[in-house]
């Protein structure tokens, strides 16, 4: 395995870990927001604090943990 290969595997693992734990939730929100909103509109995406507050509140409205 070359060094470049190893690096790409590690970076994939790292991205996967961030994705699985929700560490990248805000990045993904921004990405999604940019796709949904046309350039030049007055709207601003939520800042990171507001995003996490609403995101977590919404998550825990549902049954997420079991017996």
């Amino acid at each position, binding site marked *: 395995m070359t060094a470049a290969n190893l690096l790409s595997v590690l970076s994939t693992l790292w991205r996967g870990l961030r994705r699985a734990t929700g560490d990248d939730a805000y990045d993904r929100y921004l990405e999604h927001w940019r796709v949904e909103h046309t350039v030049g509109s007055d709207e601003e995406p939520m800042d990171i604090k507001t995003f996490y507050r609403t995101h977590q509140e919404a998550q825990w409205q*549902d049954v997420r943990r079991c017996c």
Partner: protein
Amino acid sequence: MARRAPLLLAPMPVRQRTPLLKTALWVTVAVLGAVALGSVALHRGETINSAWLVVAAICVYALGYRFYSAFIAAKVLSLDASRATPAERLDNGRDFVPTNKWIVFGHHFAAISGPGPLIGPTLAAQFGYLPGTLWILVGAVLGGCVQDFVILACSLRRNGRSLGQMARDELGPVSGATALIGVMMIMIILIAVLGLVVVKALAHSPWGTFTVGMTIPIALLMGFYMRHIRPGRVLEMSLIGVVLLILCVLLGGYVNHHPSLHTAFDLGPKALAWIVIVYGFAAATLPVWMLLAPRDYLSTFMKLGTIFLLAIAIILLRPEIQMPAVTPFIDGTGPIFGGKLFPFVFITIACGAISGFHSLISSGTTPKLLTREPDARMIGYGAMMLESFVAIMAMIAACVMEPGIFFAINSPAGVVGALPAETVATISSWGFPVSVEMMDGLAHEVGEITLFHRTGGAPSLAIGMATLFSGLFGDTFISVWYHFAIMFEALFILTTLDAGTRVGRFMLQDLLGNVVPALGRTSWYPGVFLTSALVVGSWGYFLWTGVTDPLGGINSLWPLFGISNQMLAAIALCVATTIIIKSGRARYAWVTAFPLAWLLTVTSAAAWEKLFSNEFRIGFLAKARILGDQLTAGTLSPEMMEKAPQLIFNANLNAALTFFFLVVIWIMATDTARICYRVLTGRPTLPSSETPFEPTRPSPDLATIPEPTQM
């Protein structure tokens, strides 16, 4: 665990012709499975190696997954990779998000895996290792995995709708309302019994109380960190939390040896019950970022890590099973809970084989994340297989210790006698030799005051796990491992407790909001406090009855929990069966109708016994009657005279609840039979609520989703 999963769960691509090698492989798996199962079932020597149980389990799961789940995916559900999933159609970047299937698998497994499969098998080990093990395997492959999978697929075809909504849409308002009430009730009983397990595990254990107590300030710190210091840094925050938590487990040893700290954290069951109740109320009303969400991160990492470690320990050590295959207690005289093998082994195992609660997850967050329909097989069926394997590991952990020790830890004082000498005499007379010295020596080793009458399953599981872990890492740290195991159990029990209380509160607000709209507003504080207090008060009451019960509480509450959980599974299977029949596949309806019929039989039989058995420890009504007679005759001890009126009331309340469960399940079953009859005879019914077919869009971004990882 998930790292191992690919080997076991890799889906088989559809083939035109099966190569000879593949056939040979599956024949080998089948033969190996049969040999292992045969050895487990027919072995009658001194001890049997736990490796047989592991091999039997893995072969059964492999065959079930490869053949039965493939059949269900293709024939019963017709999963279609070209059909767009809700995540694709309704992608909003928040709850509907197309996600890599391994990540969904991790999330789904983390959501469904709870304390049930650890506690249930531990308690059911009183019948010996065989009955529980067989039911965990058969029940999961033919029942539990099927339920999770089919409900997931149904919800996937209905925009991720919840079980309650599907019941209303497909069966009508009566079943819809019944299902909702059923969900509320199971929530209350579930939280009460889990709270009881924690209270029993921490009572008079300063080390455990300190460690578990410290999880609260750690979670608050993590919440503050992620809210104000480094917003959104989940991994960083979790790493800090895990390190602090492990430090607290070690620090607990110091607290235990410090004279005044020892006294400060040496709390009785009543004090602990109040603390759990106040904690539940706080967690349900405080903003989630503060306590609930950070605690959940902590508990999820701990849970996955510990389960993985347990699997490693069992596979590397291959300990001998000390428990007999079948004990004399199948006649119903067992000390841990009263009742015969049928139906109580099924009710007690509950979650490790079939868990109704999973249907709420399968129709909750998970269907909103699937990228492709066929992924439902690995996630629905596969995650439950893993959960069932956790139950097998718990069974092994319970059965590798000396049976005498197992019974001495798990039997309530009311059954085997309050004094250590009495307890060991009773248990030894059953043919499970144990001595006071053995018990005291073990208690001293693990840093506890005593291990007698530590009912609830958690302490004995912790002993089993600590023995396994110290077998792996050396004996010096057994006390640390014991308290690590207690912390791990309590941590995720309390997470289920606070998440459950919160969801219960939302459900109640939803319900009451129909009558008084203000109560439905989740931001109106008087409404929030009132509904939270109602939910906490309900489970708090049952928790209190468990704590004050002279028979230990588990004897009454665990069967009630088992019945309610299996009742919810029956509700889910009613919905699933109706949907299958409505979709024109009545010839495959047995896939869900067969487990449904079995659950109806088991729950009804268990509920009937709990209501009408004449045994004091089994029938709630008999208990009330016998205590009432003794009260009027004045034959009770002065202490019991005082307690008796309350105990009689509690027994009657439990009887009413059992009766209520029986009514709920039969309303659902009758309504399902009626609707299915109407469909099959061509009479009009509610139209299917399935969303129409939409083809998938080829999406380039899916290719960039990372490969499977640790979680």
